[in-house]
């Protein structure tokens, strides 16, 4: 398929600016750096070479012909042509993604540096707020263990408030839906697990090397046990917008939300705070769990 003109132009300007900064550069290095073939680099340089100012044959860009024949790009002249700035959308896309990784506690050190450089150059193209409180020593501890291919012992508090100590083979820190997670093999569960970073209380690097390789399938594999349908007044809609795979439809003054439930106790806990707006809950087992939790809360507050 033919390449989009804009993509090619951006690469051509990139090659030009790169050669201007780094001096004579072999085509092979340019091909590797910009992710194209040597033949394409040659074509791109050709195209830069024949660029012209209006009305005359003056070429603002000139390369050494001898060097070109030796597959090296060496500038003889460049009259002010340069890579163009980021568009507003590009700036938001990049700074937004980096900042979200940062807010989730899953941004490498180099990411913090590049983010600072981009913010300096671009002002503030987007505001990113973070809720996750990932302890720096947890983050650093995991990165150190990953880098040394060592097993780690983590103190983890799961979504049911159960505190466990697990030995894991740590693989990657990953951002999913704006939250940071550790992808690992958990020797306690004898399976691959994704642990939320802000629920890890402590990390200790062990001497044992990791024994299980990362999986190719990144991220979640929570299989919903059943489908829930909740009818709720519009006022309470927000509470259900983040449910996994949720679909929300308007129904007169209410909305009807349908979502997959992997764990009835967790889903009921999400419904409790907005219970005053909930009209109907199906299936019955989810409603029962809601009633059970409500009774337990009232018992505690008696």
């Amino acid at each position, binding site marked *: 398929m033919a390449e989009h003109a804009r993509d090619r132009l951006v690469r051509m300007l990139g090659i030009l600016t790169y050669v201007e900064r780094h001096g004579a550069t072999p085509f092979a290095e340019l091909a590797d750096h910009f992710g194209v073939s040597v033949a394409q680099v040659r074509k791109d340089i050709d195209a830069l070479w024949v660029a012209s100012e209006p009305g005359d044959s003056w070429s603002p860009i000139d390369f050494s012909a001898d060097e070109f024949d030796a597959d090296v790009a060496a500038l003889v002249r460049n009259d002010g042509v340069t*890579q*163009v700035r980021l568009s507003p959308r590009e700036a938001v896309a990049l700074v*937004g993604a980096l900042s979200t990784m940062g807010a989730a506690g899953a*941004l490498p050190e180099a990411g913090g540096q*590049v983010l600072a*450089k981009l913010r300096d150059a671009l002002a503030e193209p987007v505001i*990113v707020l*973070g809720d996750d409180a990932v302890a720096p020593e947890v983050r650093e501890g995991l990165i150190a263990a990953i880098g040394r291919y060592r097993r780690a012992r983590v103190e983890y508090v799961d979504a049911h408030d159960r505190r466990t100590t697990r030995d894991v083979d740590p693989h990657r820190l990953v951002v999913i839906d704006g939250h940071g997670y550790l992808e690992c093999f958990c020797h306690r569960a004898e399976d691959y697990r994704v642990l939320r970073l802000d629920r890890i209380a402590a990390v200790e690097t062990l001497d044992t090397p990791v024994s299980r390789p990362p999986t190719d399938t990144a991220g979640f594999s929570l299989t919903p046990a059943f489908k829930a349908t909740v009818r709720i007044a519009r006022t309470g809609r927000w509470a259900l917008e983040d449910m996994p795979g949720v679909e929300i439809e308007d129904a007169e003054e209410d909305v009807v939300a349908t979502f997959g439930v992997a764990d009835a106790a967790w889903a009921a806990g999400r419904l*409790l705070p907005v219970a005053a707006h909930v009209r109907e809950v199906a299936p019955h087992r989810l409603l029962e769990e809601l009633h059970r939790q409500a009774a337990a*809360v009232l018992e505690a507050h008696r």
Partner: protein
Amino acid sequence: MVEKSQRLLNLIIGLSSTRHRLTRDQIRDTVEGYEPLPRGASEEDARKAEQAFERMFERDKAELREMGVPVETVEDSVYGDEIGYRIRPAEAAMPALELTAAELAVLNVATDYWRGAVLGGDAQQAVMKLASSAEHGPRVELPFAALPAAAHDAIGTLVEAIADRQAVRFEYSSTKAGAATRTVEPWTVVLRAGVAYVIGFDRDREAPRTFRVQRIGGRVTPVGEHRAYDIPDEIPLGALGESEDIHTARVALRPESGHALRRRGTAASVDGGWDLYDVEYAHSDALVAEVLGLAGAARIVSPEDLAAAVVRAAQAAQEVGRG
């Protein structure tokens, strides 16, 4: 036939190097890649050629703008009524950034965040642009990843409208008012835990408002002129911002439970089968929800209104499905 990428490059060079401006006629006749009007053409052919040029030039101009190259319109009555165009090189150039190979590798991870979504192509294009500022080195493998976030198509249009300071109109379903058409002067996009918001001045309500991008139905339509309003230096984050007021609640926890609250709070004392902790909070709703979620393993001792809110929610939950 000159390739389009070549024509766009010549157009950038031409508009950047002009002392004053280039009119449409000058662009058509002198920039390599456009077809000059054929000599001695019939009136009919000249008109067709003119229309073909207009279409091509409008597309090229839009393309440059999307690339991030600001094409300025210059009107000058001294040179007649015809408008001209130019690019200010200092405004169009990528600022000097020195990036390391490791930093470039992080940028590549970050593009995954928008993969398959509306800003995915923009993120990749941005990294390609920044590659010219980066040192070349062996490929850096990072033990980090970003899984694609669900992005609403509207976000691209909103970002462009903010850059142009142009008002937008969209259908929005709010929790209070239901679905309605809103006309908004957008100020900024806010990302919070994977959720996108736009903050702006709501013209109908004559006040700043925060909109959740996901709740926008259908298309976002730009309305009115560019540069139609100013964006305030201090944008009120409203409910999205951290509240200034931090309060302290006393929470009772059953042994071996409420670990997140224990970690944030300080141990105060013990009361029967309960451990008492003092926990700071900014948003009472969030603390109430957290205590409710512990399903009886936690109890709010004070303040009383928070304890009452917990009880009210639990009572309401008991009534669900029993009316």
